[in-house]
């Protein structure tokens, strides 16, 4: 669908409040050859920092708005940001001019090593100060606001004192950053830790929500029949997450929404079908924008 000119809130960049899909290398050819109807595309920033991938993205960028979704800045690292990495991101930002830039509420780097995962932070005042300092630094360096995404997690730290939704809201309030609300992550973490996913959504500050993520996850049977939900982005969005997405739209209004699919990647058409489903829910929200219950 064509980009809409719907009004955009402070946290919302120049992306249409429509459905996009995550772009992975195996789909480059199909996108460039077929130019499918999709409102926008999002890439993992770290996959497109230079060379051939960045050149291909430049070609794709001529036809689609693009968002950068980082997995390597490690906003929660106690030892500070990797400034060389931030500079490489800034150079890619200059070439692509992404409509949105986002990162995660997590950490990945310690002792100069990148642990290749979005690791859970202890939700303490110390971590809050560190994350806010790093978000400030990134936003100052890039001269624009970023969005910070709620992670999915498989463990909680004993000394955490702040609920995740409050922590995220505090980061947004203190730094002016937006929030990337990943409804699949909310569902995964809520199931894994016994939280109420609807209460999580209700606690997020609506005007800060700049993007919503949708994805599939898997269920692993561990120790004594216990089930843990793993955020592997390798399947279709489950009905419970679609329901949570509908509720998020009712609360936050139409927000740019993205279908992520990173492992067991299917044909491009499967992703387009999932995005079409998100589009239908977005359209429905536009028809009945003000839900009295959540207003």
């Amino acid at each position: 669908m064509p980009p809409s000119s719907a009004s955009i809130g402070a946290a919302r960049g120049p992306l249409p409040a429509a459905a996009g899909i995550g772009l992975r290398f195996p789909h480059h050819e199909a996108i460039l050859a077929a130019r499918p109807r999709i409102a926008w595309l999002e890439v993992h920033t770290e996959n497109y920092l230079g060379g051939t991938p960045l050149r291909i993205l430049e070609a794709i960028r001529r036809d689609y708005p693009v968002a950068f979704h980082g997995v390597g800045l490690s906003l929660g690292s106690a030892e500070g940001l990797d400034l060389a990495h931030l500079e490489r991101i800034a150079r890619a930002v200059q070439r692509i001019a992404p409509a949105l830039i986002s990162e995660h509420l997590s950490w990945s780097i310690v002792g100069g090593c990148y642990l290749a995962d979005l690791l859970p932070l202890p939700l303490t005042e110390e971590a809050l100060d560190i994350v806010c300092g790093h978000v400030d630094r990134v936003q100052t360096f890039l001269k624009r606001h970023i969005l910070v995404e709620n992670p999915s997690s498989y463990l909680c730290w004993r000394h955490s004192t702040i609920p995740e939704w409050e922590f995220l809201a505090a980061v947004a309030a203190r730094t002016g950053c937006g929030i990337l609300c990943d409804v699949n992550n909310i569902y995964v973490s809520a199931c894994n830790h016994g939280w109420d996913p609807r209460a999580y959504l209700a606690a997020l500050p609506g005007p800060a929500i700049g993007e919503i993520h949708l994805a599939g996850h898997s269920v692993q049977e561990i120790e004594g029949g216990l089930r843990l939900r793993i955020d592997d982005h390798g399947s279709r969005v489950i009905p419970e997450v679609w329901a949570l997405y509908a509720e998020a739209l009712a609360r936050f209004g139409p927000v740019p929404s993205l279908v992520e699919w990173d492992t067991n990647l299917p044909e491009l058409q499967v992703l387009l079908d999932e995005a079409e489903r998100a589009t239908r829910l977005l359209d429905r929200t536009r028809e009945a924008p003000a839900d009295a219950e959540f207003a």
Partner: protein
Amino acid sequence: MPSLLELQRAVFHSLVEGDDRMATPDVVAAGLTPAARLGIYRDNFVGTLMNALQLCYPAIHRLVGAEFFAGAARIFIAANPPRIADLNLYGEGFAEFLASFPPAATLPYLPGVARLEWAVNRAFHAPDAEPLDLARLAAVAAADQGRIAFRPHPAVALLAAEHPVDAIWRAVLARDDAAMAAIDLDAGPVRFLVERCDTAVAVTSLAEPEWRFAAALFASRPLDAAIAAAPESDAASLLAGHLAAGRLIGFALADTGNGAGAAENCR
């Protein structure tokens, strides 16, 4: 209560070194042991890097099989956790690791194939660079031309191997069993050039003198030294070829004939 840095170091020990003792006291158990919860992250860490290695070294993966590859990758990852968040550039040194990995000793060409795959991966992801401005080159006085020390494009690499690793690499990736069977491991050393062409990576065989000239040129030795390295070659036409292909992006004038210093940088 651990500081954030202490906790992150504890997680490093758990994920990279497999030692959970520092981290487990800080994990909420809640129906699942702390070790099991940390284990999920350790599996993600190893799995993600193994996937990155497999994407970088697809021919090695096929040559040794999934099980052997996973075993070797696990040991390599524990000893070489990534230093940067761009996993496209993870896996440097895997060739040297394989060369000193006793179970791989029966396949003497394996490190050479790995070196080629790393060069291909680097060429694919290397930054863009504008080719040398030929007008700047033309402006160098004739007397100074021998002192020109070129800077190569970051996506260009030269490789040499004792075994026909380029033929092995091609046959394995094409799953061409007939080509694989026809390879003579004792055919002698091979030399080739790896470079990016548009959005693909090309691997081109070079004759030995051609390779010697290019090696001196890409190592930023002065032109005189490169010519002296391959006296039997038509240096002018080889240089013209490198320039036309955009393999050289800048130059400096070396202080002396030995190529040690560079007085001025030019584009």
